[in-house]
């Protein structure tokens, strides 16, 4: 019997929950990077429907969970990543193709110019928190290489 899989869409809570599950299943991969205490918002602009919004909560060497991140609740996040769906999908496709984000599709690279995915925050301390934990967040997202598919 052939089992086919489909990738979870990046603009879904299930996608980030799958990443969280992978992180929590393998804390030893994250331990060398040091702990990460960060409430990271994700805002993905869809072309023809309302934005996808989620709050990914990191603590210690794992992910506490993925929660709703309603508009107006920005103060619940240390900072948030905001960009269009196409760019998020490109980034994830690059991760799936190469096993990790490469070249100018890493989060740190994308947010540097900020024209496609911006790093936003109400507080410069919260924004800088992203840079303190950038390696952990990137490794979390790189989990998309093999963790976020489900049976078709």
């Amino acid at each position: 019997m052939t089992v086919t899989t489909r990738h979870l869409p990046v603009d879904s809570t299930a996608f980030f929950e799958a990443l969280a599950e992978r992180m929590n299943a393998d804390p030893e991969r994250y331990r060398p990077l040091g702990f990460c205490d960060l409430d990271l918002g994700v805002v993905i602009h869809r072309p023809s429907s309302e934005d996808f919004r989620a709050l990914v909560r990191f603590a210690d060497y794992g992910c506490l969970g993925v929660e709703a991140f309603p508009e107006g609740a920005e103060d619940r996040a240390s900072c948030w990543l905001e960009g269009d769906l196409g760019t998020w999908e490109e980034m994830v496709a690059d991760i799936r193709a190469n096993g990790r984000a490469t070249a100018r599709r890493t989060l740190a690279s994308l947010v540097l110019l900020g024209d496609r995915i911006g790093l936003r925050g109400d507080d410069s301390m919260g924004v800088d928190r992203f840079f303190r934990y950038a390696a952990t967040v990137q490794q979390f997202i790189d989990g998309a290489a093999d963790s976020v598919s489900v049976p078709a």
Partner: protein
Amino acid sequence: MASQTAQDLGVQTPAPEGGTPSMTWNGHTLPAIGPSGAPLDWAWLRGTRSEWGVRAKPSSKGLTMADIAVGTYGAVPDHPPRRTMAPRGADIDADVPDMGYLVNDKSHVWAENVYELYEEAVARQWSATRDIPWGEVAPLPEELERAVCQICTLLSEVEMIATDLPAKWLWRINHDLLEAKMFLATQVMDEARHTEVFRKRALVNGGGLLHSRKGTEELLRTILQARTFAQASALMHLLGEGFVLDLFRQGELIAPTEVEKRIFRLTMQDEARHVAYGTLHLRYAIEHDPDLAEEIHEALDHGEQMLVAFGTQTDTTEALAVLLAGGVDKVEEVGFPMLAQLQAKVLTSYLARCERAGLNRVQRTKLPVEELGIDRDVRVA
């Protein structure tokens, strides 16, 4: 809170004939004379004026410095009562010598995030020898190798200031403020590693160290010679390291290979920690001593001038532009415009951090904000 758990305190029993005097404690007999003939008083066992019965609870990370900040041990005095290395919370002899500390007010060195940052620093240590994929170093076109080496020359030079400066102040800071000292000690190590990693990169790929300029040294001297720790912290953590943090962020675009990318990502995390300390330290200092604000502003007025002089040295901007353009061919078309775009972001980040620290520099700064398209009347965040 004093402890008095011992019983039969100091009750000395006369020596029996042919024996030695003894003391009792909780029903045990203890000698009052040591093997060398020196008297023993068992004072530490008899009870001290420190808090006894403390049982700090580990948190999910392990047993952190925040976890042991319990009871009187967690009370950091605004004005430490003495200038000694005696551990805060211990039962300290009245006649301990004075160490001559110069920074004796909590507000002059403290930050609300100092516990968190210390633990983070310890947890996120890395090795420039082990954690960089040096085996992946590959030959680069000459202009790119020269550009990488020029940037590494500069960074191996400027990073050491952030080792020297905390080290210069550490022994002057009152030991009751030890959590802040411990964080600064991590910075000393972090920055030594940064100097190490950039020096290694310069020497690993057929290049070497290139130009070191007078302007760089003048900027470093300004920082090193700051009169107070608040001024030193403003110049180093907020101004110098803030700019370097943003340069490390640019590593995503300027790094020609995964080797340099990895270097910049790891150094960026360290630098962000140092900036986080400086930002909240200055905020704490100003909140507790508003007069400090003007002193810090004056230091930044001067430091920003030095930074502009430093920035007009073309070695750095040329090398960055070449790296951003991927070579010399598109340096005018791509490199310099992209650099200008990034410089505006660097300046915006710096002004936002100043504001977070309680220092509104937007109206006061002489940095070329208009040239970089920043509106002085718009709040930076």
